[in-house]
């Protein structure tokens, strides 16, 4: 009997399958309204708008999976953005600035990870502190919007390779890396630590190193998201966006990852990011006025997260635990 329940659960795939299904449905609805969406250009356009959120939410997924919270994403993105805007055309160039922001992201992740995993501080408070500090650093680097992103970056990331849009390649790469991680030892440790830290420790898992890993990699994901963001806006903007933070959590939650940790995955998050992007585009296409989008964002995020949590709960609901 235990076998068949596991089988059903595998088929249901947890929240990720539901999210992917929802994504397809929404894309169809969107395409019915905007036929151009079905073209290569249209899909590329959607991917373009999705990729920043997808990358950032992917990083967040890793941290949430191991049972912690992270608010510092938008801060790292801001730093990455302004660093690229100020150095990509000059001192560091395209490749150099990429390396620099990845290093910065890893560094912020290190700070978060060390304080949370080794000093056992609350991740909400710590990441709030690093968020504010990152905002400060971003403002110090570039006090006002400006700077310039090198053409190479803009063109590469907005263009395509052999007909495939660059964002698609980035997302595919990212998805592939996740699948490798999921089936590696570290992947197992992430899920274990998020589910039951005590049992993991008793089983010999290095809980602290696992959490540190999650924070460092997520920092690098945020940095990557910031790098790609540069291509989108072409210049630097040191201000962080509250809405974006909420979007990140919504993408994670819709994708079926439980905010308590231990369940879910990046594939679901990618679908969640896609759903949110298409939702935005649908609102725009319906002519919803700009200031209403804020309201919609706020309410829809809450609903999205609520239902996302519900689906993660249902995925883990079949339990044979007795009293």
């Amino acid at each position: 009997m235990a076998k068949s329940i596991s089988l059903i659960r595998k088929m249901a795939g947890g929240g990720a399958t539901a999210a992917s299904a929802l994504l397809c449905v929404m894309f169809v609805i969107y395409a019915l309204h905007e036929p151009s969406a079905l073209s290569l250009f249209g899909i590329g356009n959607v991917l373009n708008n999705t990729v920043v959120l997808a990358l950032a939410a992917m990083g967040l997924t890793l941290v949430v999976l191991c049972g912690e919270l992270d608010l510092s994403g938008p801060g790292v993105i801001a730093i990455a953005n302004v660093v690229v805007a100020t150095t990509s055309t000059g001192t560091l160039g395209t490749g150099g600035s990429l390396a620099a922001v990845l290093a910065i992201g890893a560094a912020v992740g290190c700070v978060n990870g060390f304080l949370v995993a080794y000093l056992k501080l609350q991740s909400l408070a710590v990441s709030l502190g690093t968020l504010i500090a990152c905002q400060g650093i971003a403002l110090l680097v570039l006090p006002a919007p400006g700077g310039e992103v090198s053409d190479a970056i803009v063109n590469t990331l907005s263009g395509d390779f052999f007909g495939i849009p660059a964002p698609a390649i980035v997302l595919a790469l990212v998805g592939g890396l996740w699948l490798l991680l999921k089936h590696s030892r570290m992947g197992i440790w992430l899920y274990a630590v998020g589910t039951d830290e005590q049992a993991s420790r008793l089983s010999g898992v290095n809980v602290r190193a696992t959490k540190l890993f999650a924070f460092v990699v997520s920092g690098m994901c945020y940095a990557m998201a910031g790098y790609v963001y540069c291509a989108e806006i072409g210049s630097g903007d040191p201000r962080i966006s509250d809405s974006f933070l909420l979007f990140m959590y919504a993408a994670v939650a819709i994708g079926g990852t439980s905010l308590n940790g231990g369940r879910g995955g990046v594939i679901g998050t990618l679908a969640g990011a896609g759903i949110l992007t298409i939702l935005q585009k649908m609102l725009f296409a319906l002519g919803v006025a700009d200031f209403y989008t804020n309201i919609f964002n706020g309410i829809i995020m809450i609903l999205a997260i609520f239902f996302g949590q519900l689906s993660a709960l249902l995925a883990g609901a079949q339990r044979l635990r007795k009293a």
Partner: protein
Amino acid sequence: MRMHEPPIPAGHAAVSKTPAARRALIGPELLPALMVFAATMVLVVGMKIANHSFGSFDQLTAIMVTAIFLVVASFGQGLIILLGGIDLSLGVVIGIGGMMIAGLTRGSDDALLLAIPATLLCCAGIGLVNGIGVALAKLPPFIITLSSGITFSGVALGLTAGSSQQSVAPALQKFMNSSFLGIPCPILFIILFVLAAWLFQNRTAEGRKLYAIGSSPGAARILGLPIAALTIAVYTIGGLCAGITGILLAGYSSSATLNMGDALLMPSIAAVVIGGARVTGGSGIYLGTFAGALFLSTLSTVITTLSLSQGFRDLVQGGIILIALVLQSGRLIVGSR
């Protein structure tokens, strides 16, 4: 049958073996408050040494006056954090409060008597929405308040079309700038407010229940404490405090913009954390929050005096939160594994 681990009193390091007769709730929690007061002194004295023109009586008074906003805002935030939650919509509600009072009074005193209650009601109402959301939805408070902040800022944006209000009731402006018996009115307000806040948080039965709920929600539930009611009440108080802050801020600046409260959100959280409260709730006395608010206001003035940029201010604030957290944990970790 399950055996249990030996009793592990992983309490404060300050608890000694010989039981000294200490009163409930005070003692180890007074320490961070005193340390922060000391830090504030150090800051002022340091600035005085570095810059002789700093630290005149007028300037110190001015620092106290500007502290009023953070003092009021951080009390509400402090109660919410005490319960184990957080309010990320505080900045938005402050802005809404300011805009409302300005918009309702439009530069004259006629409507002031009605405008103040109306504004407070509205801001408390947003707090109520937050509270109901947290009490019922079982979602993390940071998500609920983050999205309510975004939603209500959208609503406010739509209603005001983003414009700022230039005219605030003169009586308000006078209040913020005048003195009574030689003491600036805002400082009198602070004294009364701090007294009321301290009494509520640390000397009432409801305050005691808040500490209990924050300390162990599971035990509170089994005891039948009115968790949902207190949660809603606390977030409503948070909204109310934000409204008061908005009104005071509008009076002080003689104008109001929607985002004028944004700069107070992070400091309100920082003040509570620096004051020794745990973010998970259940600990920290009001004196600590007050000390934290005072310290951060002083720091802000120092940074402005030194002509340092906003970026530097954020960096320092973020760093201080992290340092405060590290220091807190250092006190809590007693033995080895």
